[in-house]
Every structure is written in C-alpha cells, then in structure tokens.
C-alpha cells in the first residue's frame, strides 16, 4: 500500500481545529475588538512583555500558530477546489496552501525565538 501524507494532514487539521475553537475567539475579542474600541484598557507594555517573554507561553503560541495555520490551509485547499471547481489543480493548490502555512510557522518561530 502506498503511503500518503493525507492522514497526517487530517490530523493537523483536526488538532488545529480544536485549538482554534478553544482559544481564538477570546483572543480576537480582546485584542481585535474590545481593546481597540476602548471598552477594555490595553494591558501595560510590561505586563504583556512579561507574558510574551515566558518560554512556556512562547512555546504554546508557536504550537497554536502552527496548528491553526495547517487547519486553515487544509480547509482553504478543499473549499477553494469545491467552490471554484479547480480540483484538477489540487497539487498546485496544496503546495500553495501548505507552503503558506510553513512560511507562517517559520515567521512565528523567528518572531517568538
């Protein structure tokens, strides 16, 4: 039987889906909506710095970024193919989507470490 990457991509997809589901809404609510609108004050730079400097927080953030990006890449790959009828270009689309996720993961690594 030929081995394929597909099961691992589905594993990353589901792992990323759970992580995105549990963590992203509160983060976008706070940093993307409530703080910019002035409903909630921005935390002090020192407090944020202390949080972001903690190695465990950084490792957790890196895991969140990698998983969520692969989740999004996997879904965007299949949705674009179904929506636009371009499934015959699956290989190219897959390379673009997962390639984007890899680039994002490397960027996150450079920002965090």
């Amino acid at each position: 039987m030929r081995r394929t990457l597909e099961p691992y991509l589905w594993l990353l997809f589901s792992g990323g889906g759970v992580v995105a589901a549990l963590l992203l809404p509160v983060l976008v609510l706070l940093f993307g909506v409530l703080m910019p609108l002035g409903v909630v004050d921005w935390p002090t730079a020192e407090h944020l710095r202390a949080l972001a400097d903690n190695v465990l927080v950084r490792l957790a953030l890196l895991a969140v970024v990698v998983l969520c990006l692969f989740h999004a890449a996997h879904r965007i790959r299949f949705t674009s193919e179904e929506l636009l009828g371009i499934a015959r270009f699956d290989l190219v689309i897959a390379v673009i989507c997962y390639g984007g996720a890899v680039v994002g993961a490397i960027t996150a690594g450079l920002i965090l470490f």
Partner: protein
Amino acid sequence: MTGAYRPPRDNLWFARTRHCAFFVLRELTSVFVAWTIVFLLMFVDAVRTGSLQEFGALAGRPWMIAINVLALAATVLHTITFLNLAPKATVVRLDGWRVPAWMIQGGNHSAWVVLSVLIAYFILRSP
C-alpha cells in the same frame, strides 16, 4: 469515440440550498482563522519589539476593527460548529455505555468557556 460525458458544472451550487450555503460559510471561517493568527503574530511582534503604540493605532482603525468583528463572528461560528462535530469523530464508551453526543458537546463548550475566562484573566489582571 470521445471521452465520457461530463455534465456542465453548476457554478452556483453553493447558493442553491441553505444547507450548501451554510456548509460553505462554515468552511470559509478558515480564512478568518488564518487572519486571526496573522493579527496575533503582528501583536506579539509589537510586544517583543516595543512598538505597541503603532500596533494600537493600526488596530484602532475603523477598517481593522471591522475586519476583526468579522473575524470574531467567524471564529465563534468555527468554534460552535467544530465542537459540535466532536461526537461524530469520538465515540466514548464507559463500561459498554456510549456517552451521548450532547454530553461530549456540552463538555467541549464548557471547556471553551472556562479556557476563555482563564485566558482573559491572565491577560487583563493587574500585575
């Protein structure tokens, strides 16, 4: 003899039924999941390089708030639909008794609320 007959593709298949439209809407939440990650990385970068002032100004622009309100709606839709799918992927049996779907979904949604409160507490508490 030419190739097999292929019926013409319906380019508006996703708009034909409410079920299909919702399916596509659910799948498109992934675009906002990706955006949220990009936005968070910009924020973490601002924290680590000491440029929070500039990030705050960018995040406060009306168009950016509009994008993030959409991202909030999309990530909440993603959360509800994804956590509701869990019982289809995970069958939990305790001594032969199958744990019903609503219990697994309820546990997932409770975990979401608890985690969200915890994260908000750690971010917002005064040091």
